[in-house]
């Protein structure tokens, strides 16, 4: 493991640890409004100050981190499983299955992602509780974000299909199901893991984009997207630098994921 991968791991573990300790670190919660001190600068009571309606920014950052870091992997799992099903199976079976699956993938890839998410979000029932809105947002991301991974998996499964060791196993009379689980799936696993890890930062950023547009996690639940909305209209770094903490955290976490991934790819190569 390279030094950079270790650093990435430590940073991610640290961030996850802090976010899991949110209720201990910020016992008053993320929704409490200190209306006597809206927009306050950092102080002993509020380490990162308060937002425009007096909510403790530190509490919102740690709770928001917890939401983003727990649900982005969940969405990544959903999308990877869908990609495995669509791409892996199509690649392995080949022929008409492959053509149909890849046509569906092409259609999904050609859709304007952000507009599709906005439309789907607007079509959902209005009376959705904040917790449900979190699940809905990440489910949507998971269900719509499988396409790129499906292509990769289809190509990998396709090359396996015509590999010598698979032909040999088939010629020796191994059943297709056994062949898939014994030979194909283990060879797809590294690609599946890679796609899973790649999807996490993508979904974190997608949620942040949706949050900025007001279509992500509903108030008063915090998320990185919602927290980044505070930066709208900020014209100078010097003005209120503590408002940049969520952005900094997002960059650090996404970079850590990328560092780990690139290192993994080097190992695989």
């Amino acid at each position, binding site marked *: 493991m390279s030094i950079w991968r270790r650093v990435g791991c430590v940073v991610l573990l640290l961030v996850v640890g802090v976010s899991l300790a949110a209720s201990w670190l910020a016992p008053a919660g993320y*929704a409490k*409004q200190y*209306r006597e001190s*809206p927009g306050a600068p950092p102080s002993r009571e509020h380490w990162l100050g308060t937002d*425009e*309606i*007096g909510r403790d920014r530190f509490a919102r950052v740690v709770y928001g981190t917890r939401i983003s870091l727990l649900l982005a992997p969940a969405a990544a799992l959903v999308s990877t499983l869908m990609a495995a099903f669509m791409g892996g199976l199509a690649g392995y079976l080949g022929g008409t299955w492959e053509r149909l699956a890849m046509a569906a993938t092409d259609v999904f890839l050609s859709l304007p992602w952000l507009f599709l998410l*906005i439309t789907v979000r*607007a079509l959902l029932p*209005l*009376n*959705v*509780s*904040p917790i449900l*809105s979190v699940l809905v947002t990440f489910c949507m991301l998971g269900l719509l974000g499988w396409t790129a991974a499906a292509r990769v998996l289809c190509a990998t499964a396709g090359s396996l299909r015509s590999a010598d060791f698979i032909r040999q196993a088939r010629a020796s009379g191994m059943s297709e199901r056994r062949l898939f689980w014994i030979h194909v799936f283990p060879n797809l696993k590294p690609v599946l893991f890679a796609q899973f890890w790649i999807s996490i930062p993508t979904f974190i950023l997608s949620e942040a984009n949706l949050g900025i*547009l*007001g*279509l992500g996690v*509903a*108030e*008063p639940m915090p998320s990185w997207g919602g927290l980044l*909305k505070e930066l*709208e*209209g900020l*014209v100078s770094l010097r003005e209120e630098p503590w408002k940049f903490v969520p952005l900094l955290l997002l960059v650090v976490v996404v970079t850590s994921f990328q560092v780990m991934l690139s290192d993994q790819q080097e190992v695989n190569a």
Partner: protein
Amino acid sequence: MKRLAAVSNSTRALGLGLIFLVTVASAQNGGTLRFCLRTEPKTFDPLKVEDEASVTIRYLTGGVLVRMNRQTQALEPELAVSWKVSKDTKQITFKLRTGLSFSDGTPFSAEDVAYTVQRLMDPELHSPTGDAFRSGPGSVQTKIVSPAEIIITFPAPVAGLDRQFDQVAIVSAHSPKKETAVLGPFTVAEYKPGASVLLKRNPYYWKADAKGQKLPYLDSIQLDIQPNRDIELLRFRKGEIDLINSLDSDNFDKLAGSTPQLVHDAGPSLDSEQLWFNQVARAPLPPYKKAWFRSTVFRRAVSEAINRADLSRVVFRGHAQPAAGPFSPANKFWFNANLKPQPYAPDAALKALAAEGFLMQGGKLKDKEGNEVVFSLVTNSGSKPRERMATMIQEDLEKIGMKVNVVTLDFPSLIERITQTFDYEAILLGLTNVGLDPNEEMNVWLSSSENHQWNPQQKSPETEWEAEIDRLMRAQASSSDPKKRKESFDRVQQIVAEQAPFIFLVNKNALSAVSPSVHGANPVVLVPQTYWNAEQLSLK
């Protein structure tokens, strides 16, 4: 000698200084005032104007018969020297100024007024300005008594008839340039779509100041099209623009922090922010929710449980006042001074709800059938103040056991739900009032109207209080007696406060910023706040 030379030099310097001062003093004439339009103007035809940018251009270029002074709110003569409204408010007689010309030199006469009015009322033109005059079927009659006198007769009474002419810019009947020939202080000289509109001084403008100097003082006005308010603020800070007509409270405070002398808070504006519940009978909502929303006790309890003082102080940083009703104190004549903003009283709200059969159980409010009180509150995405207000209301109502789910939607989706599908529970939006006369709000208060938001297009009023509002609004519209009209509209405001179909929250203050280089600016609460006296503005 050296000393003498020094004296001589300082004398010369003093002389140069005096010349410079004189130059500055006489520089009242000239210069280009720069500010921003937030959107592209949709039209330069003053009779088709609907959007804010076009209204701005109409205000600066159009000549009107009468003008409401934005500071005193009194009606003042412009192209008309005098006017008389008939008792039945169907007819108005204008005596006009003589010897005036349009910006292309075409002479002005009663023929132009007749042409403008006929065009304004032409159903084919679909003039939004003309809508205010259409109070009944039939066509408008114009009688030119002389080149300087005209009688205009409408088919039905028009409330506040003379004040409506503040919005009617006279167009020329004979000029080949048609609507681009104007009678106002400026004329459109150049339009770069997506970039800017340049207005230049109208060489034929008729007004002069007390010293006889021709108005306007400015040579031109450069209107840059800039939808982003933060960039507008940056440009103002850099000195690239001279004024910001309507600042939000965040930017106001940012600017006030560094340069307090540049910002102006003129007090409560005509604009209001309000919340309403869906009372449409055919709305796709469960019957028990419809019953809550149609209950006056429920609506009033919600109103009592909202802390308006906190909304004003926190969301608008103190640049707003708790609202009492549909009109703010900025509307000096029509505001019902007997109405006071609803005080924050969550305990009283709970008591009233308990009397209606609602019960608090484990921190949750339930109706008499055991349904938990949960509803969604929708507002438009992108409006930070409304999103903040909705979140604060969410916490306020949680204290009386109501669970509110805050939803933000893009504006077209929101409007579709309000006007087409009626698929919503509660809405938080604002009303921008431009006019002062309640007649301009007929489309909101009449139960048959499309814009009667909480329950539009009723065939006949579904409640007694809505029937009474209909009757009072029609009574005030058909009366020429201001006192009687005021009595009727005071009662309308009282009914609205009692029944709470709209829960009025706050009136935002009129906030603006003016560079010290602009001389003669006196920001007011009425639109256009900063340049209402544009002809008298000059650059130092």
